[in-house]
């Protein structure tokens, strides 16, 4: 009976401490990642307007107050995203505006693992159709080198001046 009780108590203690250990188990999430270059920004986009002239039949079918001779669809242009790290291309991609009709802002949000140390970073983000985009930025670039320690994240983001800039844990 005493042995049984001792075994029961031991099992209860082992189970409880086991649960407590699993609740706080040190786990390595960094692994081989080392450090990362992160791209994160939002741009309102470059408007693109596609217009066509309505036919006489189409105009007649519309209410009088809506008979505009031109029918225009306003969307935003997609952007090309090119990223080079350490002189090697890592991304050649197209970023599309969000929304079902493609008229919502564009978001870039990506992480690239890099080895700690000095890394050359080149980011280009350019509108693929810039017609009729007077006064709207169509090209964003950031080139430079970053010095990263283990676990650091270098963030390329949009600065207050509307240009890409770099932020690091030290900056």
């Amino acid at each position, binding site marked *: 009976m005493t042995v049984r009780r001792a075994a029961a108590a031991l099992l209860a203690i082992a189970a409880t401490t086991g649960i407590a250990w699993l609740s706080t188990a040190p786990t*390595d999430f960094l692994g081989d990642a080392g450090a990362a270059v992160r791209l994160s920004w939002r741009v309102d986009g470059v408007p693109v307007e596609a217009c066509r002239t309505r036919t006489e039949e189409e105009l007649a079918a519309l209410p009088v107050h809506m008979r505009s001779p031109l029918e225009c669809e306003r969307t935003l242009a997609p952007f090309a995203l090119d990223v080079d790290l350490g002189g090697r291309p890592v991304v050649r991609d197209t970023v599309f505006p969000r929304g079902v009709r493609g008229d919502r802002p564009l978001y870039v949000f990506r992480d690239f693992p890099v080895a700690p140390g000095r890394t050359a970073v080149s980011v280009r983000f350019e509108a693929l159709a810039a017609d009729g985009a007077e006064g709207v930025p169509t090209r964003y670039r950031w080139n430079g080198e970053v010095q990263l320690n283990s676990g650091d994240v270098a963030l390329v983001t949009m600065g207050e001046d509307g240009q890409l800039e770099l932020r690091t844990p030290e900056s």
Partner: protein
Amino acid sequence: MRVLARLDAAFNALYGWRWNPLYHSGALVVTCFAVLLATGLYLLLFYRTGAPYASVAAIDAQWWGGRWIRGLHRYVSDLALLAAVVHGFRMFAQRRSWGPRALAWVSGVVLLGIFFVCGWTGYVMVWDAHGQLLAAEGARLLDALPVFSEPLGRAFTGEEPLPGAFFFMNLFAHIALPIGIALFLWVHVSRLARVQLLPPRRLLWGTVGLFAVVAVLWPPPLGPEADLLRLPATVPTDWAYGFWLTASRGVAAGWVWAAGGAMALAALLVPVLTKPRAASAPPPSWVNPRYCTGCEQCYEDCPYEAISMVPRDDGREGTVGLVDPAKCVSCGVCAGSCAPMGVGPPGRTGRDQLAQVKEFLAGASLGPGDMVVVGCWYGATGSTEVAGARVFPIGCVGNLHTSVIEYLVRAGIGGVLVAACPPRDCQSREGVKWFHERMHNGREAELQERVDRGRIRVAYAAAGEARVLRDALAGFRAHVRLLEAAPGEHDFNVGAECEVEETAT
């Protein structure tokens, strides 16, 4: 089922069936929920959404209170998940997940999901590296859904400091989700009568006390503060809530959703997948209005509230029992409760049992020195014979009509050992409890005074406890040998003994 039976037997050997935590897994989840509410209310007093990490650090600095209360909150939340999984596995292994029990199963799966989400919001509240991991990974997964106009993940890139509104929303979710837990818990048990929400006191306070001691001696460490421009390195991680983190990071969000969705769908479809074919499904009980006296005992005893009393339509006064087939799990407890034997699943009413025991005795040629084990289908009996004693199988001892025992004893059998499952392991929930009441406390349909109690014994033996049953049988056999040979009454008239006067119209 075999794994569960062995685990049950091992835990019974250590803790006894009264305090076997596996039998109380569902009640332990409710206990954990109550502890989480109590400790959570305390922690809420000191938590600040404007300075989440600093306020948790301040709680941790309360060595006399906050530190161990936070530890207890955390450890008990893990126990809740573990107990919920064990509870679900029990119900699955015991095939108690389909038909009328489908609602309980589905609501249980939803409850488990809410527990997970509530736990994740709790860890994000702390805003240490573990919380940062959960928040960033959760946002990445949510961004894969075509729901949000702006990606949630951008909030965790380090572009801007996280606003206090985020922590307020998170806190709101962490407080609101337990309301959902309470709601679904109500749904979960809504088809049960006399719900036992808490385990026995010794198990309840023993569990809470043990976890409180561990929380005092080994409080959970506070991880490094979240820094969105740092990659979390070695982080104290809760594997109960964050087991998926190491696997999901680096995998496309679509695949994570597909895997999680497939698991959730499989869990939700268990009632459909485990439902037996119509031919092999046990039929629901029915009431024979000819024999029903309207005494309401079956209505009182039904563990699933499947019986209601309705006005008679046969010209007699009073009410008659009516079984709702959509709620009846065919446990047969009503058959054991009905003195005039007018209710039960087809083939398992008291009358059917008496006919079966008569046939059993006729084919067995048993005498005063022989033993009969009346064994539950789901218990330890298992075969047609146990250590030289013939077995009379029964769906559940709660299904067993006491007249069967009387018949066996008065027929001259040496002894009748009723092999019941441990009460908290009863497939019919309350079958063993009502059987005990009928045997010893005069509950309808009670064992008559005229029956020699010395020749009846009840043994509690779970499916994996064949040895317990054999030992009980050996002890009972030795006891019976001391008794004089029982006088035979093979001319016992079943019909005359069991017919009730007022129903003989």
